[in-house]
């Protein structure tokens, strides 16, 4: 046969390999399509996966179906989902992602959003009353709710209780930021006389905008309002940025950026900073990753901006969405409720992760009142549950990241101005930069022809 092939031996074998490969690919694709489970649930959150693994078998038994749970890197999940949805290819039936990821799916017209609109379901089944309302804002675009929040993520302060008590600081008196700064200036010191400070009051980021954003949200300044209009350019934002520059860059600074991972662990262990911004999820990761601090940490609410003001903010989050291209909408919705609204499972999950769910009924469970030995026996669930209803609203917008970055830029430029020229003219400079930032974002919004269609 090879001899009779007119183009020689090599082309013959190449042709055979091509045919065999094509048949194999077609066969494996067919097999894969046939063996697809009834539901596919993809999540980016590695700290949720164990809890889901526990909860899914009972759902499978109850409904006689198979569910595949997939852990996908957050960045990959967002880009692959976005492209798969837009290209109309196969997607998971449920996806857990960060609510801020909503910005990647809301850039075009409303009908282009590839997720099921859950507004009516949530209303009809009474969930809207049972959930922390402000958390739905992150998933609400043009008054339509496209996801169910997994968490509330109230922000508290985590502190080295052993060192703070040794220094004679009474955290109950640190009820306003003014008082916090006053005490901070006293204890921020160069301890060994080498000209470098060895102890700071607080860890605040200067290279990423989340620190400023947390402070703004605490004062009720969301980046955008419910109708999608720019909301960040306010005199209070200028005040916040000036305050932040003062605490991180002035001669009287009380803050140091301790970073992430190993450098954060080293800073916390050394006591380089005494207080750390801590949403519930960060207390969980600290507990898992820096075990040598067991019994040395405690939590307190954020100091307020004015006496009696809000004692918390919010940072991060995750939510489940159901792509329109799912294979079984009703079953997907049932799985979402099974994973997110089963109080017993939420109690167990809290003990694993320290994350407070948005389902208010769950907060009365014993799990949320249990003392946590890592946090010096404090019942941190009670503290977070107390702060959760105060968590501020933060509306979904396709311009979220751009806007947060712009605010970060204003802070950095303000800092550079302050270093070069001091306080004189700083307020006007920051206000001008904020105006420019607003004009830039507004131009982007005006340019988005598709969103206006």
């Amino acid at each position, binding site marked *: 046969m090879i*001899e009779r092939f*007119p*183009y020689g031996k090599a*082309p013959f074998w190449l042709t055979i390999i091509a045919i065999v490969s094509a048949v194999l690919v077609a066969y494996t694709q067919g097999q894969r399509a046939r063996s697809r489970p009834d539901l596919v649930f993809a999540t980016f959150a590695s700290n949720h996966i164990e809890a889901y693994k526990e909860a899914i078998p009972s759902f499978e038994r109850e409904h006689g179906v198979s569910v595949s749970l997939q852990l996908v890197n957050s960045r990959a999940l967002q*880009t692959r989902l*976005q*492209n798969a949805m*837009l*290209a109309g290819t196969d997607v998971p039936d449920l996806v857990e992602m960060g609510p801020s990821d909503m910005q*990647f799916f809301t*850039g*075009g*017209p409303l009908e*282009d959003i590839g997720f099921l609109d859950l507004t009516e379901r949530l209303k009809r089944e009474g969930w809207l009353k049972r959930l922390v309302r402000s958390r739905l804002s992150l998933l609400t675009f043009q008054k339509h709710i496209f996801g169910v929040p997994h968490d509330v993520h109230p922000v508290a302060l985590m502190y080295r209780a052993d060192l703070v008590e040794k220094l004679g600081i009474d955290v109950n008196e640190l009820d306003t930021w003014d008082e916090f700064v006053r005490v901070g200036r006293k204890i921020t010191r160069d301890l060994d006389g080498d000209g*470098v400070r060895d102890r700071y009051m607080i860890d605040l980021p*200067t*290279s*990423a905008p989340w620190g400023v954003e947390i402070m703004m949200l605490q004062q009720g300044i969301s980046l955008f309002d419910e109708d999608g209009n720019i909301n960040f350019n306010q005199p209070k934002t200028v005040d916040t940025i000036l305050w932040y520059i003062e605490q991180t860059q002035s001669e009287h600074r009380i803050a*140091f*950026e301790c*970073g992430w991972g*190993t*450098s954060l662990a*080293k*800073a916390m262990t050394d006591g*380089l900073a005494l207080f750390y911004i801590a949403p519930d999820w960060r207390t969980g990761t600290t507990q898992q990753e820096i075990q040598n601090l067991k019994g040395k940490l405690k939590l307190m609410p954020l100091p307020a901006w004015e006496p009696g003001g809000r004692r918390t903010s919010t940072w991060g989050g995750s939510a489940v969405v159901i792509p329109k291209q799912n294979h079984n909408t009703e079953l997907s919705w049932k799985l979402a409720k099974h994973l997110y609204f089963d109080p017993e499972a939420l109690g167990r999950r809290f003990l694993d992760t320290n994350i407070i769910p948005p389902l208010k009924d769950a907060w009365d469970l014993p799990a949320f009142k249990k003392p946590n030995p890592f946090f010096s026996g404090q019942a941190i669930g009670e503290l977070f549950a107390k702060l959760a209803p105060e968590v501020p609203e933060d509306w979904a917008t*396709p311009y979220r*990241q751009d806007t947060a*970055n712009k605010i*970060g*830029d204003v802070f*950095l*430029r303000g800092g*550079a101005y302050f270093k070069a020229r001091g306080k004189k003219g700083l307020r006007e400079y920051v206000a001008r930069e904020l105006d420019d930032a607003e004009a*830039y974002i507004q131009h982007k919004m005006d*340019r*988005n*022809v*598709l969103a206006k*269609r």
Partner: protein
Amino acid sequence: MSDRAPSVEKPNKGRSVEPRLAPYLFIAPYLVITAVFMVYPLINAAILTLYQTNGPASRVFIGVDNFTHLATDPMFHTALWNTTVFAAASVLLQLPLSMTLALLLNSGKSRAKAFFRLILFSPNLVGQIFVGVLFMVMFTPRYGMINRFFHTLIGWGLEEKWLQDPALVMPAIVLTAMWVWVGFNMIYFLAALQSVDKNLEEAARIDGANRFQVFWHVTLPSMRHVVIFVVVTSIIGSYQLFELPLTLFPESQGKGPDNSALTVINYLYEVGFNKGDLGLGSAVGWIVAIIIFCLSLFNIKLSGAAKE
């Protein structure tokens, strides 16, 4: 060939077409692949520059608005400036250093030469993602190796924020890239140096030329083609810088503080893939391609290599 002999001796109508078709059949896979994966995307990318898109799902014709937007977008200008600064640093700092190391190794003993060649080349084996992660740790304020090194050496830099201070970001990227690429380019220069005619250098020395004159008037012109190749590939590589900033600045997705690490490819990725505006992304892609083409052409013309 022997099995085709009968058709030559005894031609028939059906088989006489075959030899004429055969070459086309053989090159058909290449042509099809080139057409599908290169020509079509290029044409489609050119057409896309005239549209605003939300991924591949929705698009609207906007004429040349993508280009006018880029002409006025300060973020794109920052990206272009950062990339150009990095490209200049690559050519003006990295390549002379590579050449110096190549000259040193070329004059060394063969055993030491092989050892140092391996040492200097080895950063290139680990990949930019790993290098980015490594340097992110080394640049950590207070605890990072580079901060501690400077503090011990000159009493400066313990709390210096290499990756947080916009003024220090580009030096940090250049330093990191140098660590990766200096050894790689050195290998090219070393290979070129070893092929330079020793008789010419010897003749120049006999004529009274000093070491610098020998290098400048004999060695360098002899390795001109390699130098041009390395400069052109360095410029192209610099304009394609993407992974290193992305790994060094994961929180800002490679942009760095106040966009100080933003490169044109990162900007393209941001608008095209994160924001889903493939039209604007295509416009950026075409602008980058034209810049690289012009710079390469200018460089080749300048060095006179085109005449040859």
